[in-house]
């Protein structure tokens, strides 16, 4: 479904992503793990067109999207929940969800109901300004907003960041639910243990390079990973 082939991304003179290639097949959950600054978010931003690669290509559903404007990708079936959630803090909960459905051709009222059924907290607060929500609620809103476009591929950047363990569990349960209902998922996480536990396959990024890859189980069992990311 998604194929990243030999991309190189620079911030000015800083070479942030070096010859990165990987693939996400339809129906998979793929995790990218790695330390702070390894290039995980940069990779995701390059996929969704917010940054550009100097080389190689990004292919989505058989189409080269390396030069496609970012905003056109939503209607092609890609949704990206960025790092730090980036919900519209001065807009209401409902308006945020409506923005998620900006390009949607389906029945928005019905989709809103679905989201509110899934997240009763958001239903209670639908006319509240999103900036007044707690961190966990904001993450739910960010995920709900992305779901409004019925993505084929959902890209999640650090969905567990800054959340209490019980909420992290809730987010991962939600990811599993979405996956079971047919959404392909590309997940970036610092919480390597959680990320590997639900991933079909995973890639490890280090200083802008893919240094390891394998199934979630293989990587979780590997000594190198245990030492570097799983605390022994």
């Amino acid at each position, binding site marked *: 479904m998604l194929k990243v082939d030999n991309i190189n991304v620079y911030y000015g003179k800083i070479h942030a992503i070096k010859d990165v290639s990987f693939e996400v097949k339809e129906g998979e959950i793929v995790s990218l793990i790695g330390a702070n600054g390894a290039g995980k978010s940069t990779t995701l931003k390059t996929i969704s067109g917010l940054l550009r690669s100097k080389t190689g290509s990004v292919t989505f559903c058989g189409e080269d999207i390396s030069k496609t404007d970012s905003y056109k990708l939503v209607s092609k079936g890609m949704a990206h929940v960025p790092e730090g959630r980036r919900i519209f803090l001065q807009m209401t909960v409902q308006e945020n969800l409506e923005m998620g459905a900006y390009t949607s051709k389906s029945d928005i009222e019905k989709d809103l109901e679905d989201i509110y059924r899934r997240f009763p907290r958001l239903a209670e607060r639908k006319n509240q300004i999103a900036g007044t929500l707690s961190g966990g609620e904001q993450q739910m809103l960010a995920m709900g907003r992305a779901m409004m*476009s019925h993505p084929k591929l959902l890209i999640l950047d650090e969905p567990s960041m800054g959340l209490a363990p019980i909420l992290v569990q809730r987010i991962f349960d939600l990811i599993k639910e979405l996956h079971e209902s047919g959404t392909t998922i590309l997940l970036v996480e610092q919480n390597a243990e959680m990320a590997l536990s639900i991933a079909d396959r995973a890639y490890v990024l280090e200083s802008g390079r893919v240094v390891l890859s394998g199934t979630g189980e293989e990587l979780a069992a590997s000594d190198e990973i245990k030492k570097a990311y799983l605390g022994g």
Partner: protein
Amino acid sequence: MNFLSNLISGLSLGSIYALIALGYTMVYGIAKMLNFAHGDIIMVGAFAAIVFINNLGLPMILGVLLSVVVCVAVGVLVEKIAYKPLRNAPPLSVLITAIGVSYFLQSLAQLIFGTNQKAFPKFIQVAPVHIGELTIKGESIVTLAVTVTIMVVLTLFINKTRMGKAMRAVSEDRQAAELMGISVNRTITITFAIGSALASVAGSFYGLTYSFIGPYTGSMPGIKAFVAAVFGGIGSIPGAMLGGILLGIIENLAKAYISTELSDAIVFGVLILVLLVKPTGLLGKKINEKV
């Protein structure tokens, strides 16, 4: 009674400032730039109306409406040619470009129309209204009615329509809006179109109020409207309306009761005082992000 009539003409002048300030504040909020050429769009609109009415002999109201079309075209063209290539440039480069565009429009108007002031057609003639001892100019009433209607429609547009919500989304977080499938470039174009249309309407009413138009006519109301936008809280739409109207009232009352020469100084003095007490302007606010 005198006070009331001064208040009402201040209100009418202020509503013109408010229309211009809306353009400043919307462009600032969405394109994150100060479009210092915005004031000159007023002048372009006023001259366009003069050409349509005096030179081409069109009916006055039609001429004024067509001037809106001209301004929208000029505003969108300026954005495409001068600002769009600088979308990722440092803010200072964009600011300097805007000042350049301002001089360009002024010089172009000078080349075409000469430096002399031209009479602006009285496109609306309404008899003054007398309520007891109070006399209100007909033009003031029409100006107020039109500007208030425009502001109500604009507020509904921004708050209720899909496009309006997309504009608010872009203004808050450009990248996140892009990830929602909103074209930032298109949104900015629409913002310039709306801002220029408002400036054009303001230009016609400004011409109606002051009767004469020259190549530099746009600069003073432009600066005052900018002040009004900052006064109300730049980026805030209700702020621009409030700021504009208050500025018009303060200016008119200062002229009537203190000094005509000092009225501008008083206007800017009030701005400084407000910014000392509330640096974000009257309705400007900052929301802290949760991480």
